[in-house]
């Protein structure tokens, strides 16, 4: 067994070494990829600066929206991180029965779009709802903060689970075993040895969950909690004058940027690396009581996040079909959803390589800007991206307006961060010695890419592609605005059917959407989680 260097080489030395090993072509690639990502924020800001904000928005209202958005974000991020880390730790380290199965199960709720999560909360807890009638008591729907927090935390925890699991696995077993050998109990090992090493993954996951919450529209809207996104959509959908919505979007973009910059300031730059020789972690034998507690947590979570949504959808479907409602074929919607999501996932991964390379390669101001831009594109509320791109395309690229190509470009820049982050993690965890060794042995940059970089980032790329697929397949507001005419996807079908009260059709589309999303998640968990 060989132990990798625990202390990162000095930054200057690392940069000098890597600039020799990786070519300048990556910078060109990153620049090209970033161009479309720049459009929404710049076009939107330009539009607001030149077009004005229309009828103004009262300051107290702004403060209210800001408070709501930030409060929800902090609460959801903390909850999802705690829950996701718990499920990841239990399923990678302990000896609970059917551990691998639980590992997959804990990731599955990620496929449920936030608007379906919210509908589930309403459908389950409302008067006459599934849960209420089953328990025989009126629970009352937790509208407002509580409901939005519950729905978002529950369905975002898998994001943390998915990012923490590989990190847990890649931690060198030696450190934990040493602590255990010195007599530390599992929880103490976790908090003093494991947790500090998880920090990069936790920061990434927290950032993703937080930004998702800031830009989510579906859950806060249906559960009626006032945030920026809800206000933007409300203004956008209900007003001929789109300037106030654009103005709010610019403010929200600024909020997202502030969060990003704050996170970047506090981020630890120390890296933990493992050697290429990988070894399984020893499982921790839990006492019977603790095992039941762990199983209870996983089982309870699976019930709330998987069984209840499927039950609610099935209940609606059955009720409607019993009343003689026609569902209609969903094949075309399914083909479009799958096609566009696979395309976007593939393109996003390809586009993510240059940005992941240059951002892990040099911690210079320029590479910080690259990374920040990618995250800013991700954090923008999709409704705002839609508005901005529509305006831009009409003015500057009319030939792309309402085309599939434009939709794909927008998906890729919106979700580039999801593809980039796991690849960055893979690159960051791999020792730069590998690339240097390859070049030192006389291999060209392309060969190094094929023989070294791609293999060490494969699991990251797969995780990224799966995340992008799942995001695209359930994406709604930007799709609504940017899709070509007649391009109805499953997500759009669910939304429009729900809005018009056709719950039977919405449920059918919802169940299909779940099935479609579970496939890439299973493929990924098979290759990645249970590697």
């Amino acid at each position: 067994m060989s132990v990798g260097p625990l202390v990162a080489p000095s930054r200057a030395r690392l940069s000098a070494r890597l600039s020799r090993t990786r070519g300048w072509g990556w910078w060109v690639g990153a620049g090209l990829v970033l161009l479309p990502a720049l459009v929404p924020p710049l076009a939107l800001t330009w539009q607001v600066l030149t077009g004005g904000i229309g009828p103004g928005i009262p300051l107290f209202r702004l403060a209210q929206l800001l408070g709501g958005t930030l409060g929800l974000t902090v609460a959801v991020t903390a909850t999802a991180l705690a829950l996701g880390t718990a499920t990841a730790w239990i399923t990678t380290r302990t000896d609970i029965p059917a551990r691998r199965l639980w590992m997959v199960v804990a990731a599955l709720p990620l496929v449920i779009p936030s608007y379906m999560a919210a509908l589930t909360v309403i459908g389950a807890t409302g008067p006459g709802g599934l849960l209420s009638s089953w328990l025989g008591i009126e629970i009352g729907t937790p509208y407002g903060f509580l409901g939005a927090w519950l729905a978002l935390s529950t369905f975002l925890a898998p994001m943390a689970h998915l990012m923490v699991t590989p990190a847990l696995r890649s931690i060198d077993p030696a450190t934990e075993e040493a602590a255990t050998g010195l007599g530390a109990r599992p929880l103490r090992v976790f908090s003093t040895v494991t947790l500090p090493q998880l920090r990069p993954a936790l920061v990434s996951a927290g950032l993703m969950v937080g930004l998702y919450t800031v830009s989510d529209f579906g859950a806060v809207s249906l559960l009626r909690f006032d945030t920026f996104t809800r206000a933007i959509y409300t203004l956008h959908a209900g007003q001929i004058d789109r300037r106030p919505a654009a103005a709010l979007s610019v403010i929200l973009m600024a909020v997202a940027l502030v969060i990003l910059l704050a996170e970047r300031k506090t981020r630890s730059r120390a890296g933990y690396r493992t050697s290429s020789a990988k070894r399984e972690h020893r499982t921790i034998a839990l006492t019977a009581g603790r095992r039941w507690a762990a199983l209870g947590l996983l089982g309870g979570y699976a019930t709330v996040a998987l069984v209840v949504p499927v039950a609610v959808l099935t209940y609606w479907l059955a009720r409607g079909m019993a009343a003689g409602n026609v569902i209609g074929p969903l094949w075309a919607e399914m083909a479009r959803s799958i096609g566009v999501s696979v395309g976007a996932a593939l393109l996003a991964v390809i586009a993510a390589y240059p940005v992941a390379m240059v951002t892990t390669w040099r911690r210079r101001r320029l590479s910080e800007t690259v990374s920040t831009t990618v995250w800013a594109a991700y954090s923008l509320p999709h409704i705002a991206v839609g508005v901005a791109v529509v305006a831009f395309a009409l003015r500057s690229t009319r030939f792309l307006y309402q085309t599939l190509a434009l939709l794909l470009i927008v998906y890729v820049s919106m979700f580039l961060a999801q593809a980039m982050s796991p690849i960055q993690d893979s690159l960051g965890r791999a020792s730069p010695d590998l690339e240097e060794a390859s070049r030192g042995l006389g291999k060209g940059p392309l060969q190094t890419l094929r023989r070294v970089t791609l293999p060490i980032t494969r699991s990251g790329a797969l995780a990224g592609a799966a995340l992008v697929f799942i995001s695209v397949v359930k994406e709604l507001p930007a799709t609504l605005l940017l899709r070509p005419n007649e391009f109805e996807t499953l997500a759009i079908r669910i939304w429009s059917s729900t809005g018009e009260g056709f719950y039977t059709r919405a449920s059918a589309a919802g169940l299909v959407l779940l099935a479609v999303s579970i496939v890439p998640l299973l493929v990924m968990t098979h290759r990645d989680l249970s590697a």
Partner: protein
Amino acid sequence: MKRSIVLVGAILAMTACSGGDAEGPLVVYSGRAEELVEPLIEQFEESSGIEVDVRYAGSTDLAATLLQEGESTDADVFFAQDPASLGAVASLMTTLDDEILDLVDSRFADSDGRWVGTSGRIRVFVHNTGTDLPLPQTIDEANNPAWAGQIGIAPTNGSFLAFVSAMILERGEEATLEWLEELAANQPVEFEGNSPIVEATDAGEIQGGLVNHYYLLRLKAEGGGANTENWFIPAGDVGSLVMPAGASIISSTDMPEAANQFVEFLLSEEAQEFFATDTFEYPLIDGIGLGEGTPDLSEIDAPDIDLSQLADVLEDATRLVTEAGLV
């Protein structure tokens, strides 16, 4: 790997085809939901042989989109759920043929002939049958403090905004703002659309709401809505506003013939039957029977409002709704 790329390519190609890139389809912007009008579009395609591409979104959304697209729009027809959205884009519309306009009572068409009503709907006060709260006799009584926290509204929905626009026409801005402020003070529960209001009323989460009449009828057809009834406010004020969904032809259309045929089709017996029996709205041409549970229009004490003017005050309506703190 290669095989998977080919597969992805094939799927993408399939997607592109199903997206409909064929030359010269008639492009319809529909503020009416696909779930409602898709069968109708299919009937038209079948009987006319004209291919139709539909863009579905909210009526106000599409109106704003049309204004943004201006002359460069691909749209040939705008099919919207309220006269205010239609009127907002009047500058982009062509005047309809008299043969079309003559089919419909003139109060359900634009006075300048730029849009024509295709089906009628009534604003109602929907309520849970178990409630013992007093049903409003006027729209002002809908703000009765007894109903505080018990009423659902959809303040961004086109129909609600059209209703507020009508109130501005009837009472002026000041009185309308006053009414909206009273409504806001009564802490209404806000929804994105009408259907959820009816569902919530039926579930007893709220006791009533301001919606259009057909949402409940459709819920009943879906097998729900047993605990809910429509209440037609009898005062002859905007609480029982009758307004049409309607259609118009965009003047930059490159298919004026087909666009004309489409609007004519919406006023054909076939389409009007469909509106009556499938979407529970009011047919606007003579000789069509009403759908189950739809009261005769003559029983409704509707206000006398010039619907052509709704669009002129739509901006004011959205401003007042914001000022009152409802959005």
